[in-house]
């Protein structure tokens, strides 16, 4: 069960982008999780909210798109910025 490590890495990566973009918050993250990535989508969903506490991604939605290979990447993220 290494999904917590995956969730923390996910939050770290998206947090960097959010800071670069002067975002106020991350509203949603879309990740692609392949069947051979060694990552269980349900387990990732289960730990994501906890891992996101007190970070840019707190309260963000997590969309997981399935794939067939070793894919494990962040496809896109929605951020809130001051208009």
């Amino acid at each position, binding site marked *: *069960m*290494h999904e917590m*490590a*995956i969730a923390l*890495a*996910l939050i*770290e*990566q*998206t*947090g960097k*982008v*959010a800071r670069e*973009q002067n*975002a*106020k*918050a991350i*509203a949603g993250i879309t*990740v692609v999780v392949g069947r*051979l*990535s*060694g*990552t269980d989508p349900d387990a990732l969903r289960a730990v994501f*909210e*906890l891992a*996101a*506490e*007190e*970070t*840019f991604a*707190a*309260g963000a939605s997590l969309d997981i798109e399935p794939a067939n290979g*070793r894919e*494990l*990447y*962040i*496809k*896109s*993220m*929605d*951020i*809130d*910025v*001051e*208009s």
Partner: protein
Amino acid sequence: MCKDCGCGTALDRVHGHHHDHSHDSSHSHTFHGSHDHIHPHPNTPLERKTIELERKVLADNDAHAEENRRWLTAHGVMAINLISSPGAGKTYLLERTLERLRGEVSCAVITGDQCTDNDARRLMGKGAEVRQIETINSCHLDAVRVGELLPEVVGNGVKLLFIENIGNLVCPAAFDLGEHFKVALLSATEGEDKPVKYPTLFSMAPVVVLTKMDLVPHLDWDLTACRRYLRTIRPDAQIMELSAKTGQGMDNWVQYLRGITL
């Protein structure tokens, strides 16, 4: 998070709300979480923006791994990451391997376990520099922890670095440590269909060592089926059968290791 009322949880921290509150019951408090971001003023209009990323989740680990690999290559060290389920015989194989290569090919070992330095103690005194990583609650080694140990474990003249991963067929496969390649071990006491049950690891390992072959006559274990399952997952896998206990197949394995040094 306040453990009495649950305030301060992710759900409670929706943006733009107030943080201080009191309770009807016995306590009041201010929000005591720390933030790495600024909350928007309620009057500031926010705009939602989608950013296309296409970035690996483990990009940081992969970057450290790449750095480790460059460092190892620059120092003339071939590094292999040994992965198997617990009890497949990684440590025993390494013990016999170090004994055979002693005085001929200079070796080093980084061995990982959740707890204890039992493996490191078993591997010491065989001419190789050995370091143990205790991961405590983690199910895998990562590139940062391995990278921190490289300068001290890989001294002058070391040609082969064995990284003995945590016994686990799932999680270690996801983390590149900076090795040159992965070697999967599969023992005769495990099901011959392990490769198809755990395809992630077996698809990533160009070399598979079948261990405890001395036990095969006592088991209902089908070598032909095992090889077929392995080929299904990875047609080009190099498969070696051995018994570190009896020495069967060890010449072949040791000869193979001599051949991969940089």
